[in-house]
């Protein structure tokens, strides 16, 4: 057993499930104080930008540069990506002509296979965040987390999913209360109103649309923990062991198509196991202080609209990073065909999908679209500033991260997926050199994805369509 492992186990013995921080409270950085964890984040917003009648980012009345006007303090932390082809997206468009299916689907995968006919699911390639999580996610309680701001509802699976694993889509968690519970399972639940969902729940349930929802389920109480020390963990472990055996046995009789489904299920069971303390370990009474700022955020809200949910979810993502609950996360704002939510605080009564489709050269549409998109990027900037303001080691949390700020379309109203534009923010602990523009007009974006993984210390032979992978884009 290596020295570092021994140390880690010693550490683990000292912490455990006491208090509200019921998660393994270690991180490698405590063992290797000099090494700060690297984190990989994807922040998505829908609909691209509006370049105006000139047709490229240098002309026209609204560009990435203009949208980022308020980012001047972050200029040296950013790589502006321009002119990069999304060939996989283009392939899907030529297959079925539906750009909504092409953009999000390919953004993190570079994979042109499509969900079709209700059975040919996605190709086995994981999205880049999941490929990175497979390599570095073992160190944290959650291999990865998918945050959403109304990222569900109102569209088909292939129009709204960003992250994939085992040929399955990983939907984002939109409800801050649910995410809070995942991150801080033993903390008192925040008191938040129910999340509005655009999913026709009452009608799908067969009840009348005006009928009120039944009262929420009573909070589960642990079953008679006679010996509080290891009882609860042992009990959970018994259940998970049993489930693993069942899934393994079922896999031998399920068809090939269903085996990936069971692989995904097994992955999820393993994630649950990671939340338990190591076998035989007695949870101690003293939580290990990871960082004085690692604590459940105080969440409160009168109503859950887009600004509120975005604020709460960014708070939770920030805490997940501070507490080292995960090192890989995606943050999905709406999705590529969101028909349900308006923007009253910006004076925009349109829904996002309609803004995407409107003639953005007309001031009536263009101004509103730009207002919304700029609001998105301003919120993202606010979150990035928070990371930058959080000291970590000899630098800060943003320096130790790589953040891919992306959108699935080039220009919203044209529904083009090429060129792919976006931002890379942070230095991935020194592996990335920001403060520049990257123009790669002939390099399929699969190679950018590979370059991101490389910057995270993860070398992948390919991602998505293999023939599109030539050589990882160096971000150094």
């Amino acid at each position: 057993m290596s020295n570092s492992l021994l140390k880690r186990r010693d550490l683990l013995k000292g912490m455990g499930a006491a208090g509200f921080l019921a998660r393994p409270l270690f991180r490698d950085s405590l063992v290797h104080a000099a090494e700060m964890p690297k984190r990989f984040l994807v922040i998505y917003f829908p609909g691209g930008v509006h370049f105006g009648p000139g047709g490229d980012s240098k002309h026209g009345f609204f560009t990435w540069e203009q949208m980022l006007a308020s980012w001047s303090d972050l200029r040296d932390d950013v790589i502006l990506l321009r002119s990069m082809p999304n060939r996989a997206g283009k392939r899907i468009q030529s297959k079925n002509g539906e750009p909504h299916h092409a953009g999000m689907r390919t953004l993190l995968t570079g994979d042109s296979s499509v969900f079709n006919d209700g059975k040919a699911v996605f190709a086995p390639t994981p999205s880049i965040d999941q490929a990175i999580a497979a390599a570095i996610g073992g160190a944290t309680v959650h291999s990865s987390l998918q945050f959403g701001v109304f990222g569900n509802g109102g569209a088909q699976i292939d129009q709204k999913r960003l992250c994939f694993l085992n040929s399955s889509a990983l939907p984002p968690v939109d409800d801050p209360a649910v995410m809070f519970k995942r991150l801080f399972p033993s903390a008192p639940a925040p008191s938040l109103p129910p999340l509005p969902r655009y999913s026709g729940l009452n009608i799908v349930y067969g009840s009348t649309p005006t009928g009120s929802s039944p009262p929420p389920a009573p909070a589960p109480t642990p079953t008679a923990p006679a010996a509080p020390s290891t009882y609860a963990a042992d009990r959970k472990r018994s259940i998970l062991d049993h489930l693993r055996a069942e899934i393994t046995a079922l896999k031998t009789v399920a068809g090939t198509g269903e085996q990936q489904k069971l692989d995904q299920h097994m992955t999820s069971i393993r994630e649950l196991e990671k939340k338990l303390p190591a076998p035989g370990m007695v949870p101690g009474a003293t939580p290990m202080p990871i960082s004085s700022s690692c604590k459940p955020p105080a969440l409160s809200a009168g109503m859950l609209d887009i600004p509120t949910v975005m604020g709460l979810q960014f708070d939770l993502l920030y805490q997940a990073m501070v507490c080292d609950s995960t090192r890989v996360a995606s943050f999905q704002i709406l999705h590529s065909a969101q028909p349900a939510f308006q923007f009253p605080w910006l004076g925009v009564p349109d829904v996002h999908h309609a803004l995407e489709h409107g003639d953005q050269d007309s001031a009536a549409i263009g101004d509103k679209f730009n207002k919304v998109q700029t609001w998105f990027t301003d919120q993202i900037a606010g979150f990035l500033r928070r990371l930058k303001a959080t000291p970590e080691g000899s630098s800060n949390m943003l320096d130790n991260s790589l953040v891919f700020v992306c959108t699935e379309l080039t220009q919203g109203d044209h529904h083009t997926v090429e060129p792919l534009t976006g931002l890379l923010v942070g230095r991935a602990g020194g592996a990335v050199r920001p403060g520049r523009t990257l123009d790669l007009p002939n390099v399929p974006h699969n190679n950018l994805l590979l370059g991101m993984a490389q910057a995270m210390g993860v070398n992948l032979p390919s991602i998505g369509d293999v023939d599109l992978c030539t050589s990882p884009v160096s971000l150094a």
Partner: protein
Amino acid sequence: MMFRSAPGCFALVLVVASVGCTGQLVSDQPGGSAPLSPGSGGDSPASGAPPPSGVAPGPSAPTATGGTCPAAPPASVALRRLSNVEYDNTVRDLLNTTQTPGRSFLEEDEALGFRNIAAALTVPPALAEQYAEAAAGLATEATKNVSTLAPCSSNASATAERTCADTFIRSFGRRAFRRPLAAAELQAYTRLYEAERGRASYASAVGIVVETMLQSPHFLYRAELGAGTPLRLTPHEIATQISYMVTGSMPDTDLSAAADGNRLSTPEQIEAQVRRLLMTPRANGWLRGFVMQWLGTTNAGEVPKDLTVYPAYDDALRASIAQEAVRFVDAILAESKGSIAELFGAGWTYLDARLARHYGVPAPTGAGLQRVTLPADQRAGVLTQAAFLASHSKPNESFPITRGKFLRQRVLCRSLPPPPPDANIVAPRPSPDMTTRERFAQHSANPTCAACHKLIDPLGFAFETYDGTGAFRTTENGKPVVTAGELVDVAPEVDGPFAGAVPLMRTLAPSRVVSDCAAQQAFRWALGREETSAESCLIGSLAGPGADLREILVAIARSDRFVLRAR
């Protein structure tokens, strides 16, 4: 790269909840009965998939309507994860609980317009956590009355208690897994029970069985794995499929007994169970969910509109619109057995005073929703109701392209080719002195656009007498609304000129095209997958003239598609 090529043709790309455009233009239909060839040919990879190697197609199958279709290869074995509402229905029936944890589960992914498509439903980590939490909560509640759940004398000996537990594991397992437990499973659950009993109470040991079974893949997935040669669903799998298709929950006592007694081996036995369950109130609510998912109206009570354009569209109106949609479909299912012709052609609906004002018809007497006869020249059937019209338009305009595309794909089941690669898809700007139809005139003026848009736009323009909230109108921006058009490349029985939405619906409602499309949609929903091209003939035989949804479901259940699988 991004120049704006005028003139533009906007549209094929938009629709909010579109099904995948398969790239095959269906035209030149050979006969009156629709051939239903979604996605055949072209580069649609999964349609018409060849049979798995080694599986020989069986003999020709008699169809529900007496004809004969060539045998089609069976679909692969499947595990169908319970949708969230199916989960809630199932725990309600299994545990007699009022908890509905599924309402806060990670939302199911929709595919083909439905929430129960097998390929789209998996168990990601966030959902596994929610399953675990829900199972713990349900087990805790259930074991509060352990004497009811797993009766045992309070002073039972260790051996006697073990017998109680054994009985419980068998009986609860039979219901949770919708089949008897295999010997090895019984042993494994017994070990789980005993390990827990060694460290905690009887109730807690019973509880761990419940908590585990509620997270078991045998509970969370409806297995369609089959047995024998040719591979055929087991009686318990058939019972499960019947029950979830008709009621959205686990089999009831009668159906379970039929499975235990191996009385589900013939189409007649299956049909009898389907018919019995179709008569239950639970079936009505469940089938309503199918109809409204199919027509894209499940969000009717939540569709947002621009109040500066539609100031009358307040919360009360939205609620009334949703109630009309529900009440109408319920009535179709209850009184007309789900008649397709009535669904799309009815001259009546349910309105309250608020909605009557919106529709411009006299308010009914009596409070709440009342059945009213509609002006015969203004509305006919579900597609002329506000729920459909408001759901399939933009917040500030009617948007005929969305409506037309939806109708063509989901009500007529005709596929559309993708737009040309460099089509300008930018929507025309709103204009204060033009009608919506005039703004989209480019679609017919430009031959490149017209090739496809002649398949879409006329269908949408027919509904221009209804604004974005479903209010009736004869003028727009001071100019008359023109609704006449021509239906092309659908089927000879319906192709031709029409004057507007009402006459169009009177033609379509009783047509074979629409009833066959209803059958295709019901097939997808019932079996949780898209049909293959080899199954087109069978689907074309499911609905006869005067078709109704119940008979379509019976025909699906009687077909070999329901019971045969391939590995």
